[in-house]
């Protein structure tokens, strides 16, 4: 009698064990992480921005994973430092796709680091959410490229459009412009757009030069510009050069009526705090400032999280420029995956093209070339900046939005040296 009973018990136990193994393996499969790969400038010249972007992306990942991940899978990042060296980027993306077998890729930060990844991503026909590339897709025409910087459908032109629109509206209308740019992909594209806008709007270009990235002293450049007596000075520069250019302009006593345009770095809280009143009346581009017109749902909450995460990491302490967009380009990808319920690249691309996304940087709608369907390059003017005061940049008023008209929060002080 015992024998059949023990057999039954054993059979039942083995059945339960098999069920447990099956369940366990099923849940392990569901818990397989969804891997998103990218290269990022974590050292070298663009590392300040790259590390800040990574902090924002990690915040998004934590937010998503706290809600159960995507498609029921936890999100995991696989990333490598490209050391701000474009030549390293192709190797990184090849490794991400062929060795690490990531499910999806997103871009590094900046034009110079995005372009080298494009041929590899295109060969694999992957969607490519990109972070702050200026007119990268002009060369590639890739229909799965989605760029989060709000440079508009004609990024080269839209980048400086606001600067020239503001100049055109002055009475009497200024006549001449000087264009100076760093000798690198982004700045050259920005300068090319400025040149076209100047021509279109009837400004006479009296100085048009580039400078090498190793330039130490900018006073000879500013003096050479001053000698041409331009009404407007449009600068396309990287952070250290922007600081050098602003200091040189103040030291030389630049007499232009408008100065600024495409200077990267004047959006970073550390640089803003140090330059202080030297920034007054400069009209420069940016993508977000704490103006009442730009209070999008979720932005304050995100910035609060960012400030806490950035503390002690030696990155931009306020993170108003790049981090919200680094969060938003992940939001676009995440929302698309959830909506299409899968990782089919064609479906994801179609969804991204056809849908308007609600993000921390407002509503995002992509145009045919993967740029924002409508430009939102803000032209802001620094006003009454106090020396060594970081907190002033948390409040509206220090940076007044002048352009586009629908986001305007104040009037321009003109001329620059007023």
């Amino acid at each position, binding site marked *: 009698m015992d024998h059949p009973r023990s057999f039954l018990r054993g059979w039942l136990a083995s059945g339960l064990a098999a069920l447990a193994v099956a369940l366990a393996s099923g849940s392990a499969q569901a818990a397989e992480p969804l891997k998103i790969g990218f290269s990022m400038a974590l050292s070298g010249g663009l*590392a*300040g921005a790259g590390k800040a972007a990574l902090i924002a992306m990690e915040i998004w990942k934590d937010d998503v994973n706290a809600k159960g991940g995507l498609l029921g899978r936890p999100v995991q990042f696989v990333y490598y430092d490209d050391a701000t060296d474009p030549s390293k980027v192709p190797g990184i993306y090849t490794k991400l796709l062929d060795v690490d077998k990531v499910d999806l890729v997103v871009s590094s930060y900046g034009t110079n680091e995005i372009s080298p990844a494009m041929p590899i991503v295109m060969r694999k026909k992957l969607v490519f959410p990109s972070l702050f590339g200026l007119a990268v897709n002009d060369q590639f025409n890739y229909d799965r490229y989605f760029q989060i910087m709000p440079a508009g459908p004609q990024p080269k032109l839209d980048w400086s459009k606001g600067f020239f629109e503001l100049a055109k509206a002055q009475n009497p209308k200024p006549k001449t412009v000087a264009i100076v740019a760093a000798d690198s992909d982004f700045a050259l594209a920005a300068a090319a757009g400025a040149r076209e806008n100047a021509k279109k709007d009837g400004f006479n270009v009296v100085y048009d030069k580039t400078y090498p990235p190793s330039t130490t002293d900018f*006073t000879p450049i500013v003096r050479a510009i001053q000698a041409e007596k331009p009404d407007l000075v449009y600068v396309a520069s990287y952070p250290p050069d922007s600081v050098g250019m602003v200091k040189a302009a103040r030291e030389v006593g630049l007499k232009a009526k408008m100065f600024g345009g495409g200077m990267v770095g004047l959006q970073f809280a550390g640089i803003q705090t140090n330059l202080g009143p030297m920034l007054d009346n400069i009209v420069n581009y940016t993508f977000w400032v704490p103006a009442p017109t730009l209070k999008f749902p979720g932005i304050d909450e995100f910035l609060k999280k960012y400030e806490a995460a950035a503390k002690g990491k030696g990155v931009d302490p306020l993170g108003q420029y790049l981090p919200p967009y680094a969060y938003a380009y992940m939001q676009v990808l995440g929302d698309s995956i959830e909506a299409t319920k899968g990782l089919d690249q064609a479906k994801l691309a179609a969804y991204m093209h056809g849908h308007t996304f609600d993000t921390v940087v407002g509503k995002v709608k992509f145009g045919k070339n993967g740029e924002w369907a409508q430009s939102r390059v803000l032209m802001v003017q620094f006003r009454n900046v106090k020396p060594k005061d970081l907190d002033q940049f948390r409040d509206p008023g220090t940076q007044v939005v002048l352009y586009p008209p629908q986001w305007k929060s104040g009037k321009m002080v003109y001329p620059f040296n007023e």
Partner: protein
Amino acid sequence: MLSVDLLSNALVAGLLLGGFYAAVSIGLAISFGQLDIVNIAHPAFVVVGSYVAWILNSRFGLDPVLVGLLAAPLFFAAGVAIYRIYYAAFERTGQESLSGLAFFFGLMFIVEVGLMLAYGVDYRLVSAGYIGKSFNLGPVGLPLRLVVPFVAALALTGGIWLYLARTFTGRAILAVAQDPLALQLMGADPVRVKQFAFGLATATTALAGALLIVIGPVEPSVGREYIGRVFAIVVLGGMGSIGGMFVAALLLGIVESVVSTFAGPSWAPAVAFGVLLLTLALRPAGLFGRR
């Protein structure tokens, strides 16, 4: 059109820039020019000097140039320690040429990564009353942000030149550069002399770093921008010549500034390095080099 005002401003701006280049190059003129140590990490040490200036300026409001002077003895001690390692690992065994170069290359990366880990990658700037201000001498504008480094560089170069020419240790350094065996026969220890000289070379980077951050923002890898330039200045001036290095630095600054003003800034490095090549073609030992 050539304007006299513009030319005089370009010349003065170049002179001031050249003074700064001299401050950054003088340590290398000692370590590379006189001791034949290919210290490719020299600009990275300069960046460390910038960070020391930034820390004490942002926390205690100390003037960056003063910080540079105060930190120099610490940098001297670090230089002595680095030379001891270099000597024990490479020079003593005669492997200094290639392995020594790799050592300093590695050191440069360690310094960069160390700064990155400790202080992050954000741009660092200092505040001082003279930054952003300028004064005029007739038609010539003088930005204090460049005048202060020029004066400091002048004092540093003059001081080191006098030290090498007038003191016993200074002459021993010059002697070790020319003939270490003869120095040994005179009863002096060439290793100790070289160790002291390398310490002195490293001490100058404390001040040079302070001047660098006075001029513009600094991040951990900014030193790489200066590697080519500082070696070019030392070679152009003539290996072993402090005066030659100073003249070469001024020359490079002036050429860069004048070309930048009149032909466009993108031509400046090409013309400056063209001058270097032309000079070396005519005078292979540099402007004031020993043959």
